């Protein structure tokens, strides 16, 4: 009686979860549904006199395999939805028809088979489930068991080889990054130093609080543009910050129009060229100095 109650509860749960696995839009939901199915199957194993397999199912499947699935899911992009384009016309429909037909055929076949009452494992596992299984694995199936170890080692090596990525170029050193910063400074005037900290006179270091310069004024470099836009939309932007940002935007516009005018007057010589030339000239010198 207890077994049939367990069976019916878990059968409904696992079939519903399997349908959810197949038809849910988000891959993470599918993974959670798969975890639910595996746990209910583990309970079904335990009910059917297979406590060792139930434990292995929980440890290997819900522990290791599901963790791996979720790990790769997060790596590969959780929000990569399924494309709804059918590459083969009517494939979805016929796949579902084939699945239902397969289930009906198998179910009818199994239902029609005349099965004797289950013999039960009491005789086979007289010494207990785990010792009896161990005896089977280490005597009759010992060769398969040894081959399994080779399989696992090959799988581990294969995963390492497949997931390993050779670096195409050397990792940028601190020197390279510093040089890139100063090249950017020469080209665009981007500040090579780090952004200003909260400042000595700051009363907050939250990200929406602008840094204060030594004279107590706001440093426009430290204003987070996204948050400032958000605050301006809400009407909570500090008026001083708003004035600074407006001023900066105006000066940027001026600079860009100036650059356009310069470009119009001298179309053959872009502005960046002299900077690049000087940078190119100085670089080898620096390297020789270091050597």
């Amino acid at each position, binding site marked *: 009686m207890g077994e049939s109650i367990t069976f019916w509860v878990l059968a409904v749960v696992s079939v519903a979860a399997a349908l959810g696995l197949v038809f849910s839009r988000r891959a993470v939901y599918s993974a959670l549904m798969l975890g639910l199915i595996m746990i209910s199957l583990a309970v079904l194993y335990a009910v*059917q006199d297979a406590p060792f397999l139930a434990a292995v199912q929980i440890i290997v499947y819900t522990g290791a395999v599901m963790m791996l699935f979720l790990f790769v899911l997060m790596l590969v*992009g959780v929000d990569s939805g399924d494309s709804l384009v059918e590459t083969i016309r009517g494939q979805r429909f016929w796949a579902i028809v084939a699945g239902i037909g397969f289930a009906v055929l198998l179910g009818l076949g199994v239902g029609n088979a005349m099965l004797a009452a289950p013999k039960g494992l009491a005789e086979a596992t007289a010494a207990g489930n785990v010792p*009896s299984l161990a005896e089977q694995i280490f005597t009759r199936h010992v060769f398969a068991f040894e081959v399994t170890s080779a399989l696992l080692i090959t*799988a581990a090596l294969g995963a390492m080889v497949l997931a390993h990525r050779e670096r195409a170029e050397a990792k940028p050193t601190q020197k390279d990054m510093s040089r890139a910063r100063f090249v950017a400074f020469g080209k665009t005037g981007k500040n090579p130093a780090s952004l200003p900290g909260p400042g000595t006179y700051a009363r907050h270091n939250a990200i929406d609080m602008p840094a204060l310069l030594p004279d107590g004024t706001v440093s426009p470099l430290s204003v987070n543009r996204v948050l400032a836009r958000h605050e301006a939309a809400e009407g909570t932007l500090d008026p001083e910050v708003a004035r600074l940002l407006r001023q900066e935007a105006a000066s940027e516009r001026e600079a860009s129009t100036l650059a356009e005018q310069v470009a119009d007057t001298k179309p053959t010589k872009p502005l960046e060229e002299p900077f690049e030339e000087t940078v190119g000239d100085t670089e080898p010198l620096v390297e020789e100095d270091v050597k």
Partner: protein
Amino acid sequence: MTTHYLVLSALLFAIGGVGVLVRRNAIVVFMCVELMLNACNLAFVTFARQNGSLDGQVIAFFVMIVAAAEVVIGLAIIVTIFRTRRSASVDDASLLKH
């Protein structure tokens, strides 16, 4: 009771098969393959009890080992394909077709 377990196993296997055919996301397809393997394991365990022999449980144990190795390699392949194609869809890996 054995019949019930076998029918449940067949249902789960069929649902997994439909998932493999219907879904495009390689990871979800892979999960459906795992579901099919699990359904087979349920049948093995059921038959072990039906026939009063531990062989079914031993085979289910080996299936679990092979499934674990298969998941490791399969997910590594999916990650490698994703790195080169920027997509986990099985439709996009069609280089051999052209």
